[in-house]
């Protein structure tokens, strides 16, 4: 056997070891129920409850945004995001939050917002001044 083969086998070994570790970094998108159980950092995907109030009052605390989100099982919880309210947040289609439960509230340290394209093909802007 060549040395290269030994090294190859060693690297495959390391790879298998690392992959077994990777599993710890991965998670399925959790639900609020899971987050209650886990008690640690999870990722939750869901939709913004647009009928509920969104609070961002920078004068009080520029790092505090609160709102309600529905997870994939339809459960709705209050979310506290420890950051400024992102632009166009109200238009979001999907939110992915990273954080953990604190009592009944989900405290998120990070949020990814998926917004519909602002420049959808279906929209045609009519030149109002030309018509009028």
């Amino acid at each position, binding site marked *: 056997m*060549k*040395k*290269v083969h030994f*090294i*190859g086998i060693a*690297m495959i070994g390391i*790879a298998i070891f*690392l*992959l077994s570790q*990777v599993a710890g*970094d*991965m*998670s*399925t*998108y959790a639900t609020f129920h899971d987050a209650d159980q886990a008690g640690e*950092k*999870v*990722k939750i*995907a869901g939709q913004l409850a647009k009928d509920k109030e969104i609070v*961002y009052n*920078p*004068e009080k605390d*520029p*790092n505090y945004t609160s709102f309600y989100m529905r997870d*994939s099982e339809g459960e709705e919880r209050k979310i506290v995001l*420890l*950051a*400024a*309210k992102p*632009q166009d947040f109200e238009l979001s289609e*999907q939110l*992915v939050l*990273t954080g953990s439960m604190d009592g009944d509230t989900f*405290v998120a*340290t990070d949020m*990814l917002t*998926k917004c519909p*394209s*602002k*420049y959808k*093909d*279906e*929209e*045609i*802007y*009519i*030149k109002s001044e*030309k*018509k009028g």
Partner: protein
Amino acid sequence: MDTIQYVGEHLWPGRLGHFAIILSFVAALLASLAYFYGTQRRGLPEASRWKNIGRAAFGVHGISVFAIIGLIFYVMINRYYEYQYAQSHVSDDLPFRYIFSAFWEGQEGSFLLWMFWHVVLGVVLILTSRKWESPVLSVLSLVQVFLMSMILGVYVGFGDEAARIGSNPMMLLRDVMDAPIFASADYTELISGTGLNPLLQNYWMTIHPPTLFLGFASTVVPFCFAIAGLWTKDHRAWLKPAMHWSLFSAAILGLGILMGAAWAYEALTFGGYWAWDPVENMSLVPWLVMVAGIHTNLIARSTGYSIRSTYAFYLLSFVLVLYSSFMTRSGVLGETSAHAFTEMGLEWQLVALNVAFLGLGAVLLAMRYKSIPSPKKEESTPSKEFWIFIGTLVLLFSALLITGSTSLPVFNKIYRFFDPSFKGFTVTDQLEHHNKYQLWIGVFIGILSGLAQYLRFKEFNWAKYKNKYWKHLGIGLAAAVGITALTALWVEARAWQYLLLLFAGVFAVVTNVDYIITFLKGNLKAAGSAFSHIGFGLLIVGVLASGLNKQYISSNPYVMTGLIEGAEQDAHKRNIILFKDIPMSMSGYKVEYTKDTIDGFTRTYTVNFQKMDESGAVKESFQVQPNVLYNNEFTKIAAVNPSTRRYWNKDIFTHITSLPESEMDVEARKAIEDNLKYQSADLTPGQVYQFQDTVAVEDQDTFSIRYFNLLVDGIDRNPSHPDYHPEEGDMAIGARLQIQQRGDDTVYTALPVIVLRDQLLYTYPVQINDLSTKVRLSESILDDLLIPEESLDYQEFTLKQGEVAQFGDYRITFAQFNRQPSHPNYEPQSEDIAVGATVQIQDAAGSNYIAQPIYLIRGNRPFNVKDQIPEIGFHVRFASIDPGTESISLLVAQNQNATNTVPVEMATNSVRSDFLVLQAIEFPGINLVWFGSLLMLAGMGVSLWNRRKESRNTEPDAA
């Protein structure tokens, strides 16, 4: 339904474009076939005929691609919105310099950009690659066939079953969508473009995509050479041209990636240069594999080992580029990436593209595997080729790890195909995950690049060489440990893993510098690889410094720590609120937001930073100017741009994370304005007016009542207001107000202004933040000023200087001449002869008022400028002057209807809207990241240059 005869459409570019697309597709197919036979029949006389057909076909293909691009630019520049591509990417007000950005903003445009580079590279290859032309161009043309199919826009099949192949960028809007507007024959008059996403309106979008796509496109050349080598079974000769092209490719692709990182850092607000975003990862991975390929290529050329791996790496690099385009263009990344393209219905075509070239490479490599020469004898352990090869395996390993976790969405999608209820895997923390593994890659590469650099290819006399080797390695090791220890004083690497990585980086720098000095004797032309490895080492140190010591200075965590439970969560609190003109203290800086200015759609905020030492003295002060960009309708904020203060050893990076609702959104501003409860009052100057408001106490059924005193101190006909920029002809009036909350000693003064300009009324209210109160003047104040001349009953007085006349209850005194008169309504001209009169008016109560009317001669004609005293409704004109007696004629009238009151409106529920929420990050050592990366790429350039010269001088190509 009748067919509508549309007017105002420009159909010829579309027709020509459709033709060019089809022609280009067919020509590419023909070129590929002709070159295929040119390769198969190589050595036979007919081969050159095939080659000529191939050249001609590729030429037609290239010209057609250029024509398509030209036509798209034509419709975009002329704003022919009847074309869907123009409609969705440009608008009337898009500056010309963004036309290119708008072109490659769309998927079709970026495919065309890619093909454009392939055509350019193809032409260079035809001119330079001699005997490799046929096989290389055959493969390249085949790639072009697949890429052309993406913009073909042809339907295959019938009726509802028809599948569309490609998305044609020359489609008319009315063919793409169904909208009622297409019922009007002149619809082109009614539509306008949606324009370029404001986020993309910057110079990065102009330079980054062409560079990155040239990088992507250039990976096809080593791929083509690899296929050509396998195909023609000439396993050695292709290695030389492939080496040149792969150095070129790695340098350009690296530059493209680096530009992306710089863009992310400088113009976007990710707060960093690298986020392990899937789109970034998938451009990095082909580069890593290409770099691995360069290394095995070097081994193969020097020793004859590693030809098989060179094949594999070059094939893989291009396939990974295709995979990357699948990932970013198919929409599969939707849930994990911030910046992927949207879906376009090309998923299956993209899959086919990937499968086709992966298959071609894999099958050909498997078929030829046995015949690829590989020395029987194993590499000797202390040889350069052995350790470089280990290094390439590490690079491959890195690429596979990144690809693996980035591919989770693909895995999820496949899994969901079988089990729709599958929720899908995701990496909880992308940054942490990738950093954790890539750290070790960095350690290995750093150490190997020092270790292997001193070694020699085909080591034949290790016994003699080893002393020198160990001596240099020992010195390098010792020096690196020492420097690492020193560097660690600056870079706070708290974990041993980081220290090890820091050491690896320093070690790479030290050993390669030593290599240049002692082995190359300073011959910099041969030092390409050493430069690249030094660059890599510096990059590592820079990444560690800027990443580990990155500090959010827009917070004051020390205030919180230990005082509040759960203070570690405050570590995430990275924003600070700055009220205008109120300095805030944060992390050793005094920060103050002083002003904001609007230019076009950009609103720039000026924020002053003052660095304080412990005694509170100012050590240094500077300004940053982050800005926000409003959308084209000025209704919302479309983009936020950071501003960075640069030092040689660190950056301070700032951006606005939030603004008052009223500044971000016109609707919110309207809603807030509508919500204000204005109370109005007609105030007589000098009299105190008292009013009150009631404020609901939060969460209780009670109200608090606040009492205010309001006094009009006077009227100002020449008022100033921070937002009001006077223009000639303005009729402006302001009222000096004094407001006091009862029980509070502070008296606030305010000067609200109202301006009539070209029959438009502008109000400039004043916000008193401490009282949450806004005051403004009601437009009825102008009624007294705008009284028609004919309704005034002027009385004439002829007065000498100092003389007094009586007008009703008023004493009128002509006090003096004024040789340099000024008046808001008078704009002096050079030939004017103008003189003013100061007229004093005293009422029965003894109050004095001053009027300053002007008399002037302009162009031999007399004019006069009226002055008014709104408080008492006086209108005063200086009608003429008698030079003989030095007496003047004054016309005086009093508006009997004047109310002599000032109509004021005030709202006591107006919260302040002059603040911004700022994030400021300090990045130490960030310049090492840029310098190191650039040096790494420059090293490749040096190698390429050196090799080209060397091959010209010493070994003439066997054509």
